[in-house]
C-alpha cells in the first residue's frame, strides 16, 4: 500500500440511527476538493458493516460522524473490530457533537482525533494529510 502513488482514501461513516448528515456532507465535499477519494457507507450502519467496508475498500482513513449520543456505544466497537481484523493501521477520526469527556476517553481507546462544532474543514484536511505524511515517512524509514 504505497499511498504516494494514489490519492488518500477516506471512508465516511454514519452509525446507528443518527441521520444528521450536514456535517458529513460538508466534510465529504471538502475532502474531495482537497483531492482525496471519499467513500460513504450510507446511513444506519453497524460497526461490523463499517469495518468490513473499510477493509474491503482499503481506505487510509475512517471518519465517523456522530451527532447523537450513541458514539460511546458504536465507536469502541469499531476500534475493537479494526484491531481484531488487523486493520488498526488506519487513521480513525470522529466529527460531530462529542462532549470533551467522551472525546478524551475515545482518544485513550485509540481514536486519533475528535473534531467538534467550530472545527474548520481545512483543519480536518490538514490533519489527515499530516498524519498520512508522517505514516509514509516512518514506513520509508522502516
Amino acid at each position, binding site marked *: 500500500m504505497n499511498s504516494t502513488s494514489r490519492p488518500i482514501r477516506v471512508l*465516511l461513516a454514519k452509525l*446507528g*440511527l*443518527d*441521520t444528521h*448528515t*450536514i456535517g*458529513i*456532507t*460538508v466534510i*465529504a*465535499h*471538502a475532502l474531495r476538493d482537497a483531492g482525496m477519494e471519499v*467513500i*460513504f457507507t*450510507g*446511513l*444506519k450502519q*453497524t460497526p461490523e458493516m463499517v469495518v468490513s467496508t473499510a477493509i474491503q475498500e482499503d481506505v487510509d482513513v475512517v471518519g465517523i460522524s456522530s451527532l*447523537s*449520543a*450513541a458514539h*460511546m*456505544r*458504536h465507536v469502541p466497537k469499531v476500534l475493537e473490530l479494526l484491531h481484531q481484523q488487523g486493520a488498526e493501521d488506519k487513521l480513525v477520526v470522529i466529527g460531530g457533537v462529542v462532549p470533551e469527556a467522551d472525546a478524551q476517553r475515545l482518544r485513550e481507546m485509540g481514536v486519533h482525533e475528535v473534531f467538534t*462544532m*467550530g472545527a*474548520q*474543514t*481545512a483543519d480536518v484536511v490538514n490533519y489527515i494529510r499530516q498524519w498520512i505524511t508522517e505514516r509514509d515517512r516512518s514506513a520509508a524509514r522502516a
Partner: protein
Amino acid sequence: MNSRIGQARTLESPDQAAPAGAVSQDDSAALREAQQNWQALRFEPAIAAGTRKPLFTTQALRWPINPLYTPLDLESVGFDYLRDVGFPGEFPYTRGTDPAGNRARLWTMAQVTGFGTGRDWSKRARFMLDQGLQGLILEHDLPTTNGYDSDNPLVAGEVGRAGLAIDTLEDLESALDVPFDRLKYLMSVCNAPQPVNLAMLIATLEKKGVDPATFTLHMVNGILIEYTCVGRYIYPPRHGLRIATDVIEYTIRNHPNWMPLSIISAQLYAARANPVQELAFGISIAFAYMDAALERGFDVDTLAPYFHFVTGVDMDFFEAVCKLRAFRKVWATLLRDRYGAKRSESLKLRIMTSPGTMSLTLQQPLNNITRLATMALSCALGGAGETMTTPLHDEAHALPADEAIRVGAAVQHIVAHETGVADTIDPLAGSYYVETLTRKIETEVLAEIARIDAMGGALGAIERGYFQRELGREQYERNRDLETGARKLVGVNHLKKPEERAELDMFRLDEASEIRQIEQLQQYRANRDQAQVAAALQAVRDAAAGTENLVPPILAAVRAHATHGEICDAMREVFGVYRPDAQLTGI
C-alpha cells in the same frame, strides 16, 4: 419614453392600461433621472468613503441586494397591487389568509418537546402548558421514527434521547396524561411509521374517553422529506408514499377535523435549502401526496384544506418575510390553476412558522435569544400563520432547560404584545424591497417547480437524487461562506470568545430511563394473547401486499397489543427496506 422627459404631468392623460400600483411612464422617467442623479452625486461619493464591502447578497439565495429600492424596481418586476398583493383573506393571499390578520386573534404559540418515557413527557407537557403555551409538538425518539422497538439491539443508546420512546399503547397513554381541556393542538412527528402512530393515538383517546372532535391532531406524515434530507425512512419511496396516502385517506374519512399531513419544509430549510428550494421542493412534495390522494377518489376541494406546512425561518430578515408572502401566493395560484380548486378554503395556505434551530449557535448561547426574537419578528411580519413554534436558545447544547422554555415562550409574547407588529395587517406590504423580493422569489419558485415536474415530480426527483444533491451542494457552499467570512456569525467567526465553555444549566436525561423502558416493553409483550397478536400482524402483512388501507388492520394490531416495532417489521417483510446508494444521498 425619453421624449416625455420634461413634459408637464398635467398635460398627460393618465395611462389607463397601467396596472394599479405601478408608476406612470412620465413619473417613471422623472424618477429614473432623479435616482441616477442621487446615485452619481450622493451615493457614489459616500460609498467611496465607506468601509464595508462593495457587493451585498441575500444570505441563502445569494441574490445581489441593491443599495436602494424605489418604485422603479416594482416596475421592473411588473408589480401590480391588485394582482400581486390584493387584500387579506382574498386571492392571491399575499397579505395573509385571514381577512383580519392578527387583529382578530394572534397565532398559537407552540414549542417542541419530547424526550424520555411517556411519564417524563407528560410532566414536561404540563409544565409547558403552565408557561402559557397552548400547543404541543410530540417528537419521537429515533428508534420509534425508524420503526424499531426500544429493545432492538440496533438502537442501544438512542432510546428516549432525541424524543419520546413509544413502543406500546401504554407508553402513549402515560404520555398523554395531560389536561386535554387546555390543549388546543397536538402535533405528532412520526413520518415513516405514521399509520402505527395514528392507530395508537386513536386507541389511546378511546381508552381515555377523550372526544377526538375537541382538539386538533396534526400528523406530520411527511415521509418524502425523509428521503430528501432527514433520513428516518424505513421502506422504499413508493411504498412510503402509499403508506402516507393511507393515513390521509383514513383520517379524512374517519376524523375529518384532524390534519393528516404536515409537510415540514422547515426540515428542508434546516438541511440548508434556500427559500426558493424550500418552497419548490416542499410544494412539489405536497403535490405528490395530492396526486396520490386524488387517485383515491377525493376531489381537490375536499383534500386541499387538509394540507399543512411547517416552514422554516432563518436570520435573513427579508428573505424570511418575502418567502412567507410568496409562499401564500404561489400555493393559491397553483391550487387554482393546476388543480382547478374552487373554494377559497382550498387556496389558503395553512402554515406553522418555525424559526430554525440551525440559525442558533453553540457558541455564546445567550446570543440566541436575540436571534429568536429577530426570527419571531420576521415570522410575525411575514404572516406567522396559524401557529409559530420557537426553538430554545440552549438547544444547540442539549435538551432544553426549564429557564430556556420560559424565555422561549416569552419571546413570542414580547413580539406579539410589546412591538406593535401584530396590530396592523401585513405592515411591510408596499415596501419597494419587500415587494420586489417577494415577486422574485415567486417567479423562481414557479420555474423550479416546472423543472421538478419535468423529472416526474417529487418522487422522480427523489429517485434520481436531485433534491439530495442540490441540498448537499447548498450545505457545502453555506459552510464555505462561514469559513471564508463571507457571512459573519457572531460568536462563530465574528466577536469570537477564545476558549469559550458552555456554562448554562443543562437538562440531563435520566440514564436509567432506557432500562426502565425496555423492562416495561418486555412485560407488555409477555402479558398478551400471543395468537391474537400473530393473527393481527398477519392481517397487516396481507393488507400491505394488497391495496386495502393499512390503518384499520394496524389499529386492530395495536388493540391486540402488538408493539410499534412488530407492526413496522410486518410491513418490512412485504415492502423491503430502503438502502439508497451513495449518489442518492447527496454525500
